């Protein structure tokens, strides 16, 4: 999955017009653990515009999945809780909604696709019922009608023989088919935003591209925005309009995908790029791993969280935490060295 970076779709944000669809502001999500409180998401801010694909990139434990779950308020509490911030969706702060109001958003206006298709479907219920369930819940359609629509949805995700699949159970499906079913479920109520949390990590490489192509194609057709959470920069290059790079619960860099590939500013982003094999670039170039261990969230250094692994770190980096600063029109980076 090392396609060249695609050109940006339709110019600037202003050209697409208006306020962003989703605007996350200073989101803080903490977990209480045996070793004290851990800040999994630390003052994270980003925007998603209607119809756009935003990629959130980072390694395990960078807080990208917790960010995604926080948007729909699906953080298990206890042990987790959203401490502060705003999640403005279509002008409405999701964090201020009542339990019933957020339920009306989940699966209806914002849908989510999870990483593990094997365990994300209920083994005891038919696929058709699970795919159609959001329609039953949010549109109040009778089950007979719901199952007909579920069959259509399975057809839309290009599953062969959808009539038979509707009555089948998840264990009769392969991983790729289950993820197709999850996509169908996400599309059920024509959501304005789909959050896909590493949707292909658990799948065979051969199926990954199919699933992502399908997901983006259907999202574009439905004019749904897409948040694609991944650790795979190849995926980012091929599918994302804009990218948010996270490290240790913080946003370290955000930029349009093309800009990020052309001019990565944060040492961590550059490190990620250097550790990904490319077919279109200089094949003789050696892959460079990022040295050191991923950070321990319960014992972060006072300064830049990446400083202990950063080749270019200075004393300033270790002492004070760099804020996110604009380095271009839509390019922001949190690095002391970029001043």
């Amino acid at each position, binding site marked *: 999955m090392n396609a060249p970076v695609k050109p940006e779709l339709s110019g600037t944000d202003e050209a697409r017009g208006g306020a962003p669809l989703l605007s996350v502001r200073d989101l803080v999500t903490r977990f209480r653990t045996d070793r004290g409180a851990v800040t999994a998401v630390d003052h994270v801010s980003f925007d998603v515009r209607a119809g756009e694909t935003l990629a959130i990139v980072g390694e395990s434990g960078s807080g990208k999945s917790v960010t995604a779950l926080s948007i729909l308020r699906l953080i298990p509490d206890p042990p987790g809780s959203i401490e502060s911030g705003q999640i403005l969706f279509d002008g409405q702060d999701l964090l201020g909604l009542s339990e019933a109001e957020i339920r009306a958003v*989940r699966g209806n206006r914002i849908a989510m696709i*999870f990483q593990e298709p094997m365990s994300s479907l209920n*083994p005891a219920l038919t696929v058709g019922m699970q795919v159609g369930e*959001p329609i039953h*819940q949010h549109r109040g359609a009778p089950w007979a009608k719901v199952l007909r629509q579920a069959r259509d949805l399975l057809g839309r995700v290009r599953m062969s023989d959808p009539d038979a699949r509707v009555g089948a159970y998840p*264990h009769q499906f392969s991983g790729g088919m289950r993820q197709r079913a999850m996509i169908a479920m996400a599309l059920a109520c024509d959501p304005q935003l789909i959050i896909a949390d590493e949707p292909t990590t658990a799948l065979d490489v051969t199926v990954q591209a199919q699933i992502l192509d399908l997901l983006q194609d259907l999202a574009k057709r439905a004019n749904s925005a897409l948040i694609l959470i991944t650790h795979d920069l190849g995926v980012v290059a091929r599918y994302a309009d804009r990218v948010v790079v996270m490290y240790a619960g913080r946003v370290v860099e955000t930029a349009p995908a093309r800009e990020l590939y052309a001019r990565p500013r944060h040492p961590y982003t550059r490190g990620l790029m250097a550790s990904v094999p490319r077919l279109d670039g200089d094949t003789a170039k050696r892959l460079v791993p990022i040295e050191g261990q991923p950070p321990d969230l319960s014992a972060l250094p006072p300064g830049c969280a990446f400083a202990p692994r950063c080749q270019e770190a200075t004393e300033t980096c270790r002492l004070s935490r760099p804020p996110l600063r604009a380095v271009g029109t839509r390019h922001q980076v949190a690095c002391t060295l970029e001043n």
Partner: protein
Amino acid sequence: MRAYVVRRLLALIPTLLFVSIIVFVTVRLIPGDVIDMMLTQNDLSADKPSREQLVQALGLDRPMPEQYLRWLGGILQGDFGRSLWQSTPVLDELMHRLPVTFELGLLALIVGLVIAMPIGIYSAVRQDTAGDIAARSFSILLLSVPSFWLGTMVTVFPSIWWGWSPEVNYVRFTDDPIQNLKQMIVPALVLGAALSAVTMRMTRTMMLEVLRQDYIRTAWAKGLPGRLVVMRHALRNALIPVVTLVGLQAPLLIGGAVIIEQIFVIPGMGLLLLEAVNQRDYPIVTGVFLVVGLAVMLINLAVDLSYGMLDPRVRHR
């Protein structure tokens, strides 16, 4: 599916044969044989039959294998033999008593589940709250109270406090359902209490396990209310081990019925068995055990079949 059931039913035959041999032999090994008892009981009668006459009349002079084969041959023709004391056919006695115990067991099962399931679910959903702790304490209490003690307390104290005591003249369900149920509900509660304690804890544990699964998160992400997440998505998956447990408890329920029937004077199989054992009425004891054995095996089969209904992954083809 049908082939599977037929296969399972055929497999019952060798098991029942084995059970019958064990029961047939062990009953006759109980010290103090029936002849001695009959002789001592008949002390006052004038024309006292001799020991040899009695043994011969009851067919107990034959070698045990022959007795067994005769008895087995009778069963194959639908003849379970006759009571040694009343000389009534064993089958009639069983048919008369079986529905009573069946009703008691079924009521106890229903009572047990009706108490256990909602509390178990509540306990899991409200894990570690005061309600959960209260529910868990309640189940420990039920678990530690033996049913013979509870049964005795229930017959003694209400009569002292309110002058109420359980009805001892048994009314059959077919004669007067209301009166029958009124009579059976207290014994069923006592018998069901122990069952509900175990089931409650199992339901809670399994619900907690299932509620952590990824597909539960999917259900929340769809915007379902908690009620549907629990009832539609979690409960069914949690029920599978609970059903196994209830199936395993069924023989204990039958054992418990022996004691409960004694306390509440309910003329079921339990009471029949107890009297028969005391009188060394071999054909009755053997007959009761055969029926109980068959019942336990059928319950196990029902449990196995219910997996298929609950879990599509084990559905029999």
